[in-house]
């Protein structure tokens, strides 16, 4: 079927299978930041934005994105790199495989929640799993970044 959307700020037009997930569609476009972790909406690795709201692209059909703005980490690379440096300073990215989805959720949090407490940050990020870090250094990095941003 025909698909027409805005992908990382640029118009995209083409064919997509009706059963294709947004995750598969985006990876097929060469957007390597979008990671597959579970296929069951449990890990947060495949988080992208549709119209600025974080969605789990493993469980979102590509055709639903028609007429919408889809943003992956590649589309917000500058911001991501800045936040990424806070992670790196603490070694909190470790294997890095959960980092893109995690960063997309943190950047959405920044837009949605003004002046969040550490508890609010924790709750907002609850759906982003990480098996390496134990979360503490990730949380420290996010809170430090938010402080600088504000």
């Amino acid at each position, binding site marked *: 079927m025909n698909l027409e959307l805005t992908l990382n700020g640029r118009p995209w037009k083409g064919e997509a299978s009706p059963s294709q997930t947004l995750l598969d569609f985006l990876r097929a476009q060469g957007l390597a*930041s979008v990671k597959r972790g579970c*296929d069951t909406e449990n890990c947060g690795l495949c988080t992208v934005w549709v119209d600025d709201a974080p969605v789990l692209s493993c469980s979102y059909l590509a055709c639903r994105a028609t007429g919408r703005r889809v943003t992956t980490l590649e589309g917000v690379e500058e911001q991501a790199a800045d936040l990424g*440096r806070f992670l790196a300073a603490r*070694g909190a990215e*470790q294997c*890095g*495989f959960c980092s893109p989805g995690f960063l997309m959720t943190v950047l959405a949090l920044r837009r949605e929640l003004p002046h969040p407490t550490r508890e609010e940050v924790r709750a907002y990020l*609850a759906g982003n799993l990480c098996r390496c870090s134990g979360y503490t*250094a990730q949380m420290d990095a996010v809170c430090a970044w938010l402080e600088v941003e504000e």
Partner: protein
Amino acid sequence: MKYAVNQPVPKLDSAAMTTGKPIYTEDLAPADCLIVKVLRSPHAFARITAIRKKRALAVPGVACALTWEDVPRIRHSLGGLAYTFGSPNDRYILEDTVRYVGDAVAIVAAETEEAADKALRLLEVDYELLPAVLDPRQALDHQPPIHGEEDYSAEDTLQGQPKRNLMAHFELPYGDLDAAFAKCDVVVEDTFHTRANSHAMMETFRAFSYYDANGRLAIVTSTQIPFLCRRTAAQALGMPIDRIRVIKPKVGGGFGAKQSLVCELLCAIVTVKTRRPAKLIYSRTESFIASNSRHETYITVKLGATKDGIVRAASVHTISNAGAYGEQAFATALLTGVKTLPMFGRAEAFHFDFDITYTNTMAGGAFRGFGATQGFFATESMTNRLAVELGMDPCQLRLKNIPHSGDFMPAYFFEFLTSSALDRCIKTGRNMIGWDQKYPRVEVDGSRVRAVGMAVALQSSGISKADKCCASVKLCEDGRYIVSNGAGDMGTGCDTVLAQIAAETLQCSIDRVSSAPVDTDSSPYDKGSFASSTTYVTGMAMVKACEQLTGMMKAEAARALDCPVAFIEFDGDFFYARNGSSGRLSLELLARRQVTEPDCPWFTAEGSHCSPTSPPPLMAGFAEIELDRDTGKVTVLDYVGVVDCGTVVNPALARVQAQGGIAQGIGMALYEDVQYDEAGRMLNRNFLRYKIPSRMDLPPIRVAFEQSYEPSGPFGAKSIGEVVINTPVPAIADAIYNACGVRMTDLPMTPEKILKGLRQQVQP
């Protein structure tokens, strides 16, 4: 340390990771790869009597459908260990017998995923079902044997009897155990059951393969063991090693799971058969049901102590569940005793033995802690019980018994402890958690109570006399360095840590050192990233390589400055002639001589290291929990880990390793359990049902370091990666006892089990 060691250097690859660059295996696969899919056994134990593949092969786009008839009949093991080290040759790539639900039955490769999926559904398989056994305690002599094959082979040291399902047996006696127990005033004994756990690293198993221009098989894989993958692939495919090349991109976590070959051969055989590029990406479910897990164990511990709190006698008996295949099982079971018994540093006698049985569950494998984690749950829980029986503070009891620097450790491969700050770890952790105010418990209200618990642990730094690790360094013609290792950074940061060690040895800033990717064609040999070896063993190889390079550079500087080499000094930037002249030569000019001076050699050096000892890192862990007596729910409020890993090469990375290991340990303690139904089907095969700790389950994890200096390590360093998972399980079990008096001996420690224990207290 002046240059790079003991500094929180960011990981060299962090920018690529945090901007989502294509650096992982799947990102790099060519577009024209055949898509490989695997048909999995629905039965726990069966013989395949027929496979009809005509309809599957008729699906447009299908390139091949491979069965047991199509693969080499070469028995091998998928477990990567230094050499064979106890892994029996007990499997083919595909076989006419399937031994667990999920075992590979057939392989399909097609142009598209849809075609491959369709072909899988059209394969028709007839099975003759065999009686399966899932419980390792009932597996002995269960018939027919899981490995009745005539070409089964294993080293004699395993003392296995495969026809009886006994994979291995081992005994390690020391001293007169009966006499030692007879002297004891208090003797305690109990059995502990630890469950299979899934590694659940975020990147599932995946590989792609192709033939290169020279007709060599290339395997690109998310692995911890590039060189052992090459060796195993050569063995299983019946090819010489030089015909195979293994490339390791960035790896999205391993934790030991990728210390076995899981998907590589299933993909490579497609390339071998079709001569085409092929890729195999495991789904999360496939990763859960068809890979490997932490070995399930039953561990019986008996401790005897005199009234003064000295443990005089100890015994550990382990029954380990190998699962369907024996990879890693021997060494893992070995660690349940040899890593735990050294904590009884004043014991006069001990006895350790284990039996490993085959069952029809998924094979166990290497998982961070590698048996020691299971062992410490049992031995540390018993030490805490001893403390109660003796009326002694558990921290004090540890301080009376732990080994100290210089002590002989007969249980620990008869090695001497050459560095330890464990006593300081205990004291610091005790203060950090607020032990004196909180031990044993503080009532919150009628139902909730807060309590603390503690445990100590150690691990290894590589496998002594077995792990061979190499590292190399090259001087570029502009005076900068490129270092290489073949270890296989799986996200831990060993590429960065090894570059730091190189910079320190070469007396320069980390900015002057680059790290090369791992490729068995160009990287120096390393047995791989496991057994907590990259910092300690590969690190020493890096020191040797850099020292050798410095020697070569000095020799050339001596020629250039016309000065005996013994009088040449190097400070990282300049070579000085200290023979009375004031001559000096910059590193840049020396480096350029490689391309301007006909007689100047090219400066490249490789160091190899195999350590005669494996100095243990040590730690103390302290948990504070809140327990609700009405629901049995346990919330971890605080966790303090104090670690002696010798010199901390990278404090940021070491801290996160510790926090991550403690988090995994908390998962093992409270949530994680690979469950099978009666037919051997894994029930919790996704993240919805297999629970790893989320951000909401964990408190901020506090880590401190008490550094010792390990004389045999690079700049005094020992390992960090595994020891950190060993304390949470016994420390939380201790906290639960201190909270409500229930002794937990079965993992995970769920609210249900705690409530059952509380009810038994009420109705004795």
